[in-house]
């Protein structure tokens, strides 16, 4: 039942320990850690490596959006514990971006709710990616696959 948006890195082990400590009803904890992966863009004949990116967000709205998404997951599944920690600012390949953790008595609910939260984060939370390439900065355009991933939850 916690949402945090921060520039600093997070400690996955400590976050998960804090989430489950003292709760003996949790049988399964489904966790997602999003990392910056090394990517390449193709611009005409040039293949460029993306070394880093900056995640801009809308302070105030971001926290509200994440809390709404979390509350929606709580309505849909029998959850004992949820946690979303999302970073903003400049991030390099290999850095952690986001942590989503969901604890439930049953593993199926934990997995489903975790995937639901991650899919929604990608499309419904006010974050924008600015990628750094050797030839300059470039705002990432919306990704249709992410919309499709989020849309499958709307059918339920």
């Amino acid at each position, binding site marked *: 039942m916690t949402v945090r948006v921060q520039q600093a890195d997070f400690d996955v082990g400590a976050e998960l320990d804090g989430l489950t400590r003292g709760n003996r009803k949790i049988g399964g904890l489904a966790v997602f850690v*999003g990392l910056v992966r090394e990517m390449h863009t193709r611009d005409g004949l040039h293949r460029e490596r993306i070394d880093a990116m900056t*995640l*801009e*967000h*809308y302070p*105030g*709205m971001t926290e*509200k*959006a994440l809390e709404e998404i979390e509350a929606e997951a709580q309505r849909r599944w029998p959850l004992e514990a949820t946690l979303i920690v*999302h970073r903003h600012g400049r991030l390099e390949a290999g850095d952690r*971006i*986001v942590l989503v953790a969901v604890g439930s008595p049953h593993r199926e609910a934990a997995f489903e709710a975790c995937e639901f939260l*991650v899919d929604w*984060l*990608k*499309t*419904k*939370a*006010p*974050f*924008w*990616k*600015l990628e750094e390439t050797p030839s300059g900065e470039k*705002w*990432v*355009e*919306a*990704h249709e696959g992410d919309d499709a991933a989020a849309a499958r939850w709307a059918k339920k």
Partner: protein
Amino acid sequence: MKVRYFAWMKRTVGLPEEEVMPPAEVRTVGDLVVWLRARSAGHAEALAAGAAFGAAVDQKTASFDAPLAGVREVAFFPPFTGG
């Protein structure tokens, strides 16, 4: 009323935010878009009719026909690409 811009719109407009006092006939978010375009070439480009952008009213996603009465903050931004 505070107007905020994010991502490439902030750079195109040239400011992250501004205080504006639109006239009474600017009743909706869509009216505000049209009214803001006249402020500068950057505004006109960022808020052009063909550009893909959304809006939030008081930090919640809103459609362009959302009313502005009593609103403190309107934001414009490109589609979310984060996470």
